[in-house]
């Protein structure tokens, strides 16, 4: 496979989006995430600012993940009804992030907002604290 970086038409766009075969250890992720939290902590003066920074970083992750998952699992069809969206998160997204489905639909702090921008764009904003907590729970 041509890996050379080409100007103009990029070879990366040709790559398939199937689940990557490489598996990284949970501790690699945990160490990286912990370092990211510490980095943010060093640049803010309040907890809410810290949460905002982390959420900002998570937002990009969520947006990319959404695209990949929708392509892969749902053949490019995005859910537009709220209940279906939440089900999508519960089943597909959580599985992609944590390897299993979320236990309950109610009670986890994740803000789902529908964002209107040149058509319907769904922005799923993950509370990074939830991800962190869930990851440590998974690690036990």
């Amino acid at each position, binding site marked *: 496979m041509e890996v050379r*970086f080409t100007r103009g038409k990029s070879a990366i766009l040709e790559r398939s989006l199937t689940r990557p075969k490489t598996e990284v*250890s949970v501790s690699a*992720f945990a160490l990286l995430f912990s370092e990211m939290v510490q*980095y943010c902590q060093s640049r803010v003066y309040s907890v809410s600012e810290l949460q905002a920074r982390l959420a900002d*970083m998570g937002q990009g*992750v969520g947006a*990319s*993940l959404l695209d990949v998952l929708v392509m892969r699992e749902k053949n490019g069809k995005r859910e537009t009804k709220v209940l279906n969206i939440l089900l999508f998160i519960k089943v597909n997204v959580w599985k992609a992030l944590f390897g299993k489905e979320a236990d309950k639909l109610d009670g986890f702090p994740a803000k789902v907002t529908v964002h209107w921008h040149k058509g319907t764009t769904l922005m799923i904003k993950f509370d990074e604290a939830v991800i962190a907590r869930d990851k440590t729970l998974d690690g036990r």
Partner: protein
Amino acid sequence: PLKHNSELFTLTYGALVTQLCKDYENDEEVNKQLDKMGYNIGVRLIEDFLARSSVGRCHDFRETADVIAKVAFKMYLGITPSVTNWSPAGDEFSLILESNPLVDFVELPDNHSNLVYSSLLCGVLRGALEMVQMAVDVRFAQDTLRGDNVTEIRMKFIKRIEENLPVGDE
């Protein structure tokens, strides 16, 4: 040993690099920051590594190289780079990475041509080895993100760090 597919990891690292590019003026600064964060990770990672692998103390740099490539990289990143290009003195070698989960689907935009995206790895290796009394220099010799065919990490042994014995009462 808990493993998970690399997507979240790749995206999270990408979010970090993106954030650093926003926070710092130029690529060199971002490289330095990534290296520093990698170092912090490395000094903690080594303990996790020693606890989870049954590897004993390495007797020489060659053994170290093998352990890094075949055990550590496999354990944490799910890849096994090859060890090549040994210097005649046996104090320098290359790790050739055919693939790298940190950079899946990553492209460097034109205005960041000096960014060494995976700089974190250099710091991790340096920090981890320092904790086992080895001072090394780690740098990227080749980088697929910058147009090379493979990614090559060059590792050079600098010196053995003397264990600091606690100062007794004089």
